[in-house]
């Protein structure tokens, strides 16, 4: 078994694969990330063949680890890096109990966090990636981790999952090719390429931030924006959380506090430049 031990924010991973290639690709993608403190990994994420012969014969990678989902479809080994990324996500989504997880991206400036929740295709990853290259610190691409005791957002700066047109857009902006993973084509998510966050985002992965603004992006529409009520904000954040129900009352208390105190809005945008301009305008109005 090929292995990689890796710490990303509060998560200490033990990552394994019977194939060398996906681990080597992951090691390159996460170059510069620390090892788990005291060498103690607490989350196991693995890929493996769903049947013994699938290790060699038309090899397939099934998502494994501490937690498994029975209906997960194995992936072709050429997408092994994506399979590792997916099981790393899955283990956190199914197992994390210290932090409230919200399906969102987040960036930070002056100690305050902008949270961008959204479904796949909403543009949250692209916006967060762009902001992360222009004066903001990327805190999260997929899961925003909220400490139920303090309400602070803790960084979980995983590699950013760029899809389709966002790939070329980020390739034009970032000169360092070593920050990109390999091109992955024909994946269940379309064309895909991972991007390592900036060295600053990785180096400051233990610095939390106070939630200051929640914006719900919607890519592919004419520019428009409107406020989101406190009750809708609460409802949408709970819908987008993988562990709200499991956390019980602490999760309720923390999300009601966020709904009461953090302004929220939704906006539509046709292209990245317009999206960034709308985000910066909201942030200026929120004093962020």
């Amino acid at each position: 078994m090929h292995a990689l031990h890796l710490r990303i924010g509060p998560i200490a991973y033990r990552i394994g694969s019977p194939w060398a290639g996906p681990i080597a690709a992951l090691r390159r993608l996460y170059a510069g990330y620390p090892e788990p403190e005291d060498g103690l990994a607490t989350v196991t994420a693995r890929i493996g063949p769903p049947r013994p012969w699938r290790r060699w014969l038309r090899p397939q990678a099934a998502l494994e680890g501490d937690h498994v989902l029975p209906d997960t479809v194995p992936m072709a080994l050429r997408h092994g890096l994506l399979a590792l990324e997916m099981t790393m996500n899955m283990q956190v989504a199914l197992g994390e109990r210290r932090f409230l997880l919200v399906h969102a991206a987040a960036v930070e400036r002056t100690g305050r966090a902008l949270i961008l929740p959204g479904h796949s295709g909403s543009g949250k990853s692209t916006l967060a990636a762009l902001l992360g290259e222009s004066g903001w610190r990327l805190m999260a691409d997929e899961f925003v981790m909220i400490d139920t005791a303090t309400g602070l957002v803790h960084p979980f700066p995983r590699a950013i999952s760029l899809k389709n047109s966002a790939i070329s857009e980020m390739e034009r902006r970032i000169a360092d090719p070593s920050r990109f993973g390999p091109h992955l084509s024909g994946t269940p998510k379309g064309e895909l390429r991972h991007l390592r966050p900036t060295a600053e985002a990785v180096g400051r992965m233990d610095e939390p931030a106070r939630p200051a603004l929640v914006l719900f992006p919607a890519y592919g529409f004419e520019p428009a924006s409107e406020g989101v009520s406190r009750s809708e904000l609460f409802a949408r954040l709970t819908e987008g959380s993988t562990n709200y129900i499991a956390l019980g009352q602490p999760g309720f208390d923390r999300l009601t506090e966020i709904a009461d105190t953090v302004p929220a809005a939704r906006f539509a945008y046709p292209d990245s430049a317009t999206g960034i301009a709308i985000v910066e305008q909201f942030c200026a109005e929120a004093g962020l």
Partner: protein
Amino acid sequence: MPRSRAAPDRTGGLGAIVTATIYRTDFPGSCRVHPIDGMTLVFHRPSGATHFLDSPVPEMLELLAETPDDIEGLTRRLCARLGTTDDDEARTVVGTRIAELVAIGLVQAS
């Protein structure tokens, strides 16, 4: 505390006395209650479920928390509190809402 009581005979004196269901609630003692946008957000500890409640449901729960009651009695007290007419339509609304509250575990029937 009696678990049931005789309901008024609405059959012109021909029907037998029937036993009405009494409803009670563990609200608000076993709940976290949070007002939001004119509604009431409730986290129900025993079930771990979160509910958005709009009027008259929070008022119904408050009345049942004060005194367990049947549909007739609860409708009468609710209409008095809200200043509305105690009629068949009100009883229908209360009965429907109570059935929903029983289904989600915020109210228990006995």
